């Protein structure tokens, strides 16, 4: 497979604040990547750097093998759906979709029309008068119908209701299957998208804390629960990601368990449960300052 995005030692500083801190990642062609992390973790800055909308402080960025900054060849193949896209004051959605083909050579007007119907978007109402969800729908439609070889969705569905989000996932999957392309999606709704993702990058305080295939991450952690003494005996010597206790019971999240580990756990009367991607992200990006467990 070809690498579409290649980033090495990338940093971005705003004055004394380091938004992106020595990041190195690679994203393969025709894959769906989730860029996950907490508010202010650096997801948007990362996307702005990759689309040439911010200048890096140091490090290197290669998109389609080239530097994206002021590079029309790269940017013509890129679509960036921003969290809060600004439009001219008197614009209506119809204007957005009419001007989209000027920027996106693969624009499919018929597909855009179907999406407008799916999302029940009023085409001729002023964008200023639209709800937050309808505003998000415009971005989602642009992102899908542009069929850009590289598409970034930054929190694409603020205000979208559950039905509209499901529509977005369904249309994304269908169209991605028909027209494979590279998609990078940032979101807080990890449970909703985890099955769509092939590659997961988790960023925290500007650093990459997880970078791997979604399939590998699925069984990279397990929760072991049961009598505290039995749990303690089982997890001794393992890396503990999280621990909860209730009376004589304990529930401990540890790293990957192999078949022998699982057998040993069930022989010891312990219950094993998988850890969802969302839980894994929470475990790896939580600063625990609770009593007696202050982390360094």
């Amino acid at each position, binding site marked *: 497979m070809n690498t579409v995005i290649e980033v090495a030692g990338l940093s971005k500083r705003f004055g004394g604040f380091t938004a992106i801190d020595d990041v190195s990642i690679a994203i393969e062609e025709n894959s769906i990547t989730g860029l996950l992390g907490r508010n202010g973790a650096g997801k948007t800055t990362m996307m702005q750097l990759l689309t040439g909308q911010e200048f890096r402080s140091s490090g290197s960025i290669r998109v389609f093998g080239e530097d994206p900054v002021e590079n029309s060849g790269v940017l013509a193949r890129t679509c960036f759906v921003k969290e809060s896209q600004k439009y001219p004051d008197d614009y209506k959605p119809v204007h957005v979709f009419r001007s989209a083909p000027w920027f996106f050579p693969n624009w499919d007007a018929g597909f855009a029309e179907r999406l407008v119907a799916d999302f029940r978007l009023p085409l001729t109402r002023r964008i200023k008068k639209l709800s937050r969800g309808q505003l998000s729908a415009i971005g989602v439609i642009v992102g899908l119908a542009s069929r850009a070889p590289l598409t970034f969705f930054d929190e694409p569905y603020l205000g979208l209701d559950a039905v509209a989000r499901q529509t977005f996932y369904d249309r994304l999957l269908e169209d991605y*299957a028909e027209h494979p392309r590279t998609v990078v999606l940032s979101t807080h709704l990890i449970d909703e998208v985890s099955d*769509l993702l092939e590659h997961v990058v988790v960023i925290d305080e500007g650093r990459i804390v997880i970078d791997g295939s979604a399939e590998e991450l699925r069984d990279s952690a397990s929760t072991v629960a049961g009598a505290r003494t039995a749990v303690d005996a089982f997890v001794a010597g393992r890396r503990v990601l999280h621990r909860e206790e209730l009376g004589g019971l304990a529930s401990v999240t540890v790293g990957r368990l192999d078949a022998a580990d699982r057998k040993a756990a069930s022989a010891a009367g312990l219950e094993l449960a998988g850890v969802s991607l969302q839980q894994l992200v929470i475990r790896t990006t939580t600063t625990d300052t609770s009593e007696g467990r202050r982390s360094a």
Partner: protein
Amino acid sequence: MDESRPIFLQIAERIENDILGGALAEEGQVPSTNEFASFYRINPATAGKGVNLLVDDGILYKKRGIGMFVSEGSRERLVAKRREQFSQEFVRPLLAEAVKLGISPAQLITMIQKEGS
């Protein structure tokens, strides 16, 4: 989808279940990878991995340019494979729970006979 196991294995299992249950007939065509992906709302690459697992096992076979089909004799082979797993996946957990509740093997047999009649 179950969180603890890889999705592609779960997809392969669901296809196997459909063959065992008769929903997918031998020599019948199975849905495409993309159809599986949109039906189960999963990444097409993951669906493809699940389907390929069954191709490697000889349960499914590809006809070039047409699609994917259920191999002849696959149902019988799946029954044999599942029977081997039956003890480990169903009988042992059943016995473990029975021990916890103080149910003797003789009582368990009576219960099974009662449920089965």
